[in-house]
């Protein structure tokens, strides 16, 4: 019993000491990873904080999972490669017309594909995803040269895009159960609606 009381007191005192030390934390703020980390985080958060990019990337993963093997892996392989081509165009100053509109259209199209359970041939699905990837890449690429560290930015946004695809695949795999199938198709509908919101300027 005594042992328990002593332990509790020590824990409380330790916690209080930690809180006291924590309140002095501002002075110790000292990150120094420099341009590499800021470039990486800037690139990494670009697809995550842009809701239009985010929903479209997740949609690609969901659609891939929905279409099954080999699309489940083929689409996430094709997308970054074609997106890089779009990124290259953006970096060298070739601005594609209506990029934001096409990004919104990608969310609508792929979202509808999921919601309506469309299963086009693999080549057509790859073509659709690839075409949209160019616009996503162009949007990322056109902003890249302005960042502190473009190389880290490139690594960050490609990694974030890939991880969003994997998130989409994870969601899409719910399709294996009956309830999950409904949830996945509902998610497709929501993505299409969000895309519509971006397209019309509501969002």
């Amino acid at each position, binding site marked *: 019993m005594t042992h328990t009381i002593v332990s509790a007191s020590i824990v409380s005192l330790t916690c209080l000491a930690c809180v006291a030390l924590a309140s002095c934390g*501002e002075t110790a703020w000292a990150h120094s990873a420099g341009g590499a980390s800021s470039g990486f985080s800037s690139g990494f958060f670009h697809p995550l904080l842009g809701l239009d990019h985010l929903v479209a990337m997740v949609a690609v993963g969901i659609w891939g999972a929905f279409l099954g093997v080999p699309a489940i892996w083929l689409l996430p392989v094709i997308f970054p490669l074609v997106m890089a081509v779009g990124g290259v165009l953006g970096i060298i100053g070739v601005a594609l017309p209506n990029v934001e509109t096409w990004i919104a259209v990608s969310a609508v199209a792929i979202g509808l594909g999921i919601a309506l359970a469309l299963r086009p041939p693999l080549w057509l699905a790859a073509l659709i995803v690839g075409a949209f990837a160019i616009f996503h890449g162009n949007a990322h690429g056109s902003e890249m040269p302005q960042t502190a560290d473009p190389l880290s930015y490139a*690594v960050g946004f490609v990694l974030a895009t890939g991880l969003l695809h994997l998130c989409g695949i994870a969601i899409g795999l719910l399709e294996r159960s009956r309830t999950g199938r409904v949830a996945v198709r509902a998610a497709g509908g929501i993505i299409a609606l969000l895309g519509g919101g971006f397209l019309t300027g509501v969002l």
Partner: protein
Amino acid sequence: MNPRRLFCVGAAVLLPDTASAHEAFGDLGPFYTHMLHPAVDPAQALVLVGAGALLTRQPIATVKLAYAVLVVAGALAVSILVLVPFASPGLWLTATTTILLGLLTISGMLLPRWMVCALCAAVAVLAASALDMTGTGLAVLQKAIGGALGLAVTVLFFWGFLDFAVRRIHPVSAAVVGSWIAAVGLLILVLPS
């Protein structure tokens, strides 16, 4: 949970700046600075990650030999760099190598053993050239050992990580990562110098 502990945790949570209040790297000394160099130099890390990904797609017998070649080539390149400093060949070569490694990883082709060894040796030399080996005495020795170890550890780590993903998640995981590597290579190929 004990209410007092809960209160303390709650109080700590209200001060989130604390979680960020540590030095990211600081002055680690020549050994650790060079060993951890791939963590702060994305160009160097890219080719090493690419080599790790390529090895994931090759048979284990090839991996053992190619990894040994990479370690030896890295150590030799670092040693030569100490004696004869040579300039880093530039980002275009890193980009080209990265694209090549990424595409080979996507394809999943079983390459001839000599070719995998040659690629690993080239990657080791390229990655080593990113290290700063200026200085004298013990500091240079520490830089050299740390740098060579850093190259070896980075490739081994990514090979192990991807090999785990290939075995436990899906065999095509390496191809997905290969596409990311090739995509980054393609982007940095056109980056303004």
